[in-house]
């Protein structure tokens, strides 16, 4: 690896932080977000939900155990850039490749030596905003680029995030899945719970989906503004009542909109592996993995829809159910990776429900 070069992190409100480049050269723009998850850095940056975003790790040291196959959540790095306090570049349990080297090979702009706590508390206090990381521009030029960047609101990124039409799993009920940027672990957990997945890109039509005679429709996680994903919402609307519908994260938001609920921007998003969620049915708490900047609004609550999960951090909606339509969804990530497995039962419950 070449010597670390100076770089800059700039936010749209002018906050400027010094940095050192540890991977690819260049300039990256996007929405600034942070995660408080302490492990699973490779899983995080390959999560398609992070498209359009620059990810800051609050964890003090990132990259301690190397990188390698088997730890990615999709075929490539999805974050626009990566910001860290301290990053490592040695092989370890995840593989012989150093983390910085792995990022460089992926062509990702990544920086360290950043006062990440300052960045995190800034975003916490002032809310989500656009930002940039550059190894080539001075702060003034970078700020101009940041302010010209369109941001996430109104962006439909599902098509860009999704993979091709494909299948997964061998036996069990056939599930049609709309891929808005599905994480590999969701596919693996679904298949592991015993279903056959027919995965469609987000521009699939109702006919495409019904042509495989699915026992249920699943709508995946993904990046961007749920309000902009009109086509997927209309597909869900069409099948609601015909077959059960289940959604995770973005899929949850799209189901909610199809049911007539609203979505809204959270002040600074939920991103981490320690989010407690209360289950309405038994008043139990599960520690969940979250990665979302938008949430389902709790009102208006249409007839026939129940809130089944709430965040113990801010009371926001974490799960809904429409029993008569056999539709339900969760905002958090039961597939974990990275994070606790408390909600892993969700996949088995889903398969039982639709079998």
């Amino acid at each position, binding site marked *: 690896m070449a010597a670390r070069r100076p770089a800059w992190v700039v936010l749209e409100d002018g906050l400027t*932080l*010094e940095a050192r480049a540890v991977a690819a050269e260049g300039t990256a723009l996007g929405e600034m977000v*942070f995660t*408080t*998850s*302490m*492990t*699973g850095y490779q*899983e995080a940056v390959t999560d398609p939900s992070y498209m359009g975003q620059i990810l800051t790790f*609050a*964890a*003090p*040291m990132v990259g*301690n*155990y190397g990188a390698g196959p088997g*730890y990615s959540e999709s075929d490539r790095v999805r974050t626009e850039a990566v910001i860290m*306090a*301290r990053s490592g570049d*040695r092989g*370890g*349990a*995840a593989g012989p490749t150093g983390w910085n080297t792995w990022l460089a090979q992926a062509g990702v702009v990544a920086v360290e030596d950043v*006062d*990440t*706590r*300052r960045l*995190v*508390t800034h975003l*916490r*206090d002032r809310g989500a905003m656009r930002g940039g990381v550059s190894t080539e521009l001075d702060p003034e030029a970078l700020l101009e680029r940041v302010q010209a960047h369109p941001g996430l609101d109104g962006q439909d990124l599902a098509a860009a995030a999704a993979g091709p039409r494909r299948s997964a799993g061998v036996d069990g009920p056939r599930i049609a899945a709309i891929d808005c940027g599905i994480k590999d672990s969701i596919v693996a957990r679904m298949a592991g719970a015993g279903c056959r997945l027919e995965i469609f890109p987000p521009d699939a039509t109702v006919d495409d989906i019904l042509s495989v005679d699915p026992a249920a429709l699943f709508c995946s996680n993904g990046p961007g503004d749920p309000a902009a994903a009109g086509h997927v919402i209309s597909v869900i609307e069409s099948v609601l009542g015909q077959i059960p519908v289940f959604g995770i994260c973005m899929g949850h938001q799209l189901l909610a909109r199809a049911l007539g609920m609203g979505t809204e921007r959270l002040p600074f998003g939920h991103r*981490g*592996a*320690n*989010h*407690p969620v*209360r289950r309405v049915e038994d*008043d*139990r*708490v599960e*520690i969940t993995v979250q990665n979302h900047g938008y949430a389902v609004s709790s009102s208006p609550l249409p007839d026939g829809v129940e809130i089944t999960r709430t965040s*113990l*951090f801010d009371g926001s909606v974490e799960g809904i159910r429409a029993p008569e339509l056999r539709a339900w969804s969760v905002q958090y990530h039961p597939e*974990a*990776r*990275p*994070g*606790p*497995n408390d909600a892993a039962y969700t996949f088995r419950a889903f398969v039982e429900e639709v079998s």
Partner: protein
Amino acid sequence: MPRRTDISTILVLGSGPIVIGQAGEFDYSGTQACQALRDEGYRVVLVNSNPATIMTDPGVADRTYVEPLDPETVRAVIERERPDALLPTLGGQTALNLAMSLHESGVLEEYGVELIGARADAIRTAEDREEFKRAMVDAGLNVLEAHTVTTVDDAQEAARKLGFPVILRPAFTLGGEGGGVATDAAELQVMAANAISASPIDQVLIERSVTGWGEFELEVIRDRNDNAIIICSIENLDPMGVHTGDSVTVAPAMTLTDDELQAMRDAAITVIRAVGVETGGSNVQFAFNRDTRELVVIEMNPRVSRSSALASKATGFPIARVAARLAVGYTLDELPNEITQVTPASFEPSLDYVAVKVPRFAFEKLDGTTGKLSTYMQSVGEVLAMGQTFAEAYGKAMGGQELDVPFRQPADLAEALERLREPNADRWQLIGWAVENGATAEELAEATEVHPWFCREMVALGQALGSVGTDLAALDADDLRGARRAGLTDGDIARATGTDELAVWTARRAAGGRPRLQAVDTCAGGFRARTPYFYAGVATSGEPDPAADRRSVIVLGSGPNRIGQGVEFDYCCVHAALSARELGYTSVMVNCNPETVSTDHGVSDRLYMEPLTLGSVLDICEREKPLGVITSLGGQTPLRLARGLEAAGVPLLGTSAESIELAEDRERFAALASSLGLEAPPWAIAHSEDEARAAARDVGFPVLVRPSFVLGGRAMAIIFTQDDLDRYLDLERPRWPLLIDSFLENAVELDDEAMEAYLGGDEPAEAVIKKCLRKAVLTNYAHASMRQRCECFGIDAFFDKSLHLNQLIDYVVDAAQQKSGT
């Protein structure tokens, strides 16, 4: 679920005297528990035999019995107080074993006392090695192959099946006491007999050895609604084979992938459910083979443990306070997170810093010990430090140990690496030496079985030290900041450049390299913290400085426990902080000992988890601009800083540096005594070996020799002959000057407590002092022996025989007035 209303009086058991493996952390957890239960409106009855604790202070419990922690006494307390419930999980192994004994003898049933926190069957499952293994296997978890034995012959038979080496783990013991690693049949023969007698039920587990595997711990909390959360993951740098209390540990775990960590998390929650700990905290230990990825459960404590205290301090999550509330029926989602006050307790702390704990050993005080580490705990204290990198936290923690004996330097690198093969108390100093002398990370990893990631960190630390050079003046702001960020302390830089800490601190300050306050907020900055719990870090930003209103009083704590400096100093510091707050000042605590009440963030208005080194304390003073600093209540640790603080212009409250020196400098104190006309044994001061020999001859054998500024009699000795003196000088190489007293044989030793009051009250100062003194003499233990123990020297006898109480008081008053600078 709200709190239980079917119980009203709760009996809490303390942990008794301080022993290795059970120190002030149980005063911390017990005090938190008593306060939490009283806050909830319960009547708390406490039994603890250790009066040098905060928990036995008036006002902590409703009724406090300073009585022996034995079944008969506690039965009598139960008979009298009729508690509805007994909370046994916050007083260490002592309380747990006592509760089990009361359960087994039927006392609890007889008086209708319910065990809360952990029921008897859960305690038995966790503590009985065989039942524990069975429960783990039933729950689908891996355990080490092992055999439970009750005789030495069976132990040999078990070892033959497993193959040597084998680990011995006696049931129901504390800190692995009586256990160890046996490498052959002869060793096992002796060790098995010891282990069997160490176990209260004569039961020992002979276990397959996984020495060299990685060792990890998870702190789990569960509530009665079966919610379970992990407070903290802790990675031991020392691999399996060294007791976790003797290991350098780091939180969060540094080298685990997310998959590995989650597998451990799932297993830990399975363990607490399988054992059946209904509510409260437990510590689950794992061994992890890095090559085969094999994960095995080693053991669990069904109670708050030393590791729980560490996890509480490392994360800011008050495990004991939460555990006490869970025991009376609350659930985790009902309790607020004290630090953020906006989030519930049912979350898992997220760290944006690294916390490192290093053990403090005291083998230098124990003749005939080698410092060899094993599966039973031998350290007497610990230091916790935080940093924004592992190296920064590690460097700070090592610097906070206050090691006062130089370690044995190896002749060359080969010797160092050879010595590193066997874990020893000096291994981390030795690693530092080896790195400075060219050892590679691979060599270190091979010799020590410490994970290569940490070995590389050690090498980087050594390289940073090497790049500091020998000239302090040549270091610019970037160099100094870089050195700090690399993990070097002011002390390290001072040693490298042949200067002192004050010089380095001054240079760093001139270069603008002041560390910033960083908050310990349990949530990695995700929410605004309300509780001011801080460490210092080298980031470019930090929490805003406190208001410079000169209303804060900084209390310097006592650092790591060691022999002669234990929780009693913490007791004083806690009271100082509480009193300062009562008087309307902002109380600020600085300490690095996680086993204490003083490092509970509820005790002071602001808590700094920082080593008690001059640079760290000066940095805090720069931020706080305090009214003054109290150095006189934390034992020798803060006293040693007094001069430097004064030199840097920091106002000291209470005893001045001058007065401290007058008392601690043996020469000056002796001169004071004679100027006051006080009788003292013949004495002399020696500045060299020759002077010492001459002085001893003049004073006349036997003599008592002691250096200045020492703690608990370190390097102090009674010497009877010239030969003994030569041997002492040769072995101890004491710091000069040395005070040589005539040793008074068959004399009685008396301690007096004097205090100085400000003049100006209604009573003359002398009267106040005399009143205090009378009380002190009456209440203080007043017997000790010199050569032969005085048998049964009761208080009445003391009054008869001491005769000169009033004369004694006059002496002390006089001395106090002379000594006091104010």
